[in-house]
């Protein structure tokens, strides 16, 4: 993706390219779409936000003397007369990974200018995300019915509820925003906005399939955060 606008610039891989990219008193990330660089910077800041949540959860869980609720029982489901631990969470994890895979393929087909495949895969990703949010809503209402509140719960340490609602709620918000954008981008892809270079609603810059990659970065990040939440909140 070398930027033809920078005369005579040729990107070199490895540390040589890095030195050239950072140390030449010019634009950094030469040739990278500004939206992509900005999305990475946003994701970095978002990483810090989620880290702060998870670290405060670690601190809260580590410093309480009351037993922490056993997540494997709290999030277990009773299906066909059997208690299955963490069943819903496992399904949610698989749904999110599936949608991450379809998104990765959508980015690939986008760069190959395969409009139909790209559009359908984005739509599949959006439906995966919607399923995830739906299951999260079910999980929330189940726990609320069982008496889990941000300040108390019947299973153990009262801090459990506040960390649970804060962390999964913030992640769920990210997924919901992602789903909205996925539907918009699916529409724009099917309409051929990226083939024609049609300008977006809020920007004067011409549409390009790189936008699918930018959206993909966001969606993979949401999946990435879930990997950490799944490990630290549900499994630990």
């Amino acid at each position, binding site marked *: 993706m070398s930027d033809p606008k920078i005369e005579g610039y040729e990107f070199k891989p490895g540390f040589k390219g890095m030195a050239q990219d950072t140390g030449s008193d010019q634009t950094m*990330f030469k040739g990278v779409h500004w939206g992509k660089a900005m999305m990475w910077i946003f994701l*970095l800041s978002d*990483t810090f936000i989620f880290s702060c949540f998870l670290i405060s959860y670690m*601190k809260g869980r580590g*410093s309480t003397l009351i037993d922490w609720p056993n997540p494997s029982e709290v999030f277990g489901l009773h299906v066909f007369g059997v208690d299955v631990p963490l069943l819903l969470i496992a399904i949610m*994890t698989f749904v999110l990974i599936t949608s991450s895979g379809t*998104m990765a393929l959508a980015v690939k087909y986008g760069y190959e200018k395969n409009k139909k495949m790209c559009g359908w895969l984005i739509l599949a990703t959006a439906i995966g995300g919607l399923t995830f949010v739906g299951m999260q809503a079910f999980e929330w209402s189940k726990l609320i019915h069982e008496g889990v509140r941000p300040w108390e719960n019947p299973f153990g340490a009262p801090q459990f509820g506040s960390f649970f609602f804060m962390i999964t709620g913030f992640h769920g918000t990210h997924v919901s925003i992602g789903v909205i954008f996925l539907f918009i981008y699916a529409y724009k892809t099917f309409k051929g906005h990226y083939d024609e270079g049609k300008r977006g609603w809020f920007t004067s810059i011409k549409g390009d399939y790189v936008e699918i990659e930018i959206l993909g970065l966001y969606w993979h990040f949401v999946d*990435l955060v879930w*990997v950490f939440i799944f490990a630290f909140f549900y499994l630990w």
Partner: protein
Amino acid sequence: MSEIKKQEQTTTHKIGIYLWIWGLLFVLSFFSYMVDWYQFQGLLRWSLILLFMFLKAGLIMAFFMHLFWERYALVNVLLWPMTAIGCFIFLMVAEFEYTVFTRLFYFVVGG
């Protein structure tokens, strides 16, 4: 123009690599679920959880988010700030251990 054409080829990869990573992510998620299923406890549980977590996170970042193919300038700008998170975790571990210590201490000797 030939430059642009050359670059376009590097931005798309064979479908096989995505399917492989996808499959690996499924297998790793299955393994981390098995950690809970078989109720491993203690150090074994924590190390397995962390191992599968870092493997999954690494695969997603390297291949789905294309960091493996990305220029070093971007990769370094992204990964070095993460060390600050490591420092923060280290500080807060010390902090919660101190909190637990004071709570237990005053519980025993009284206010």
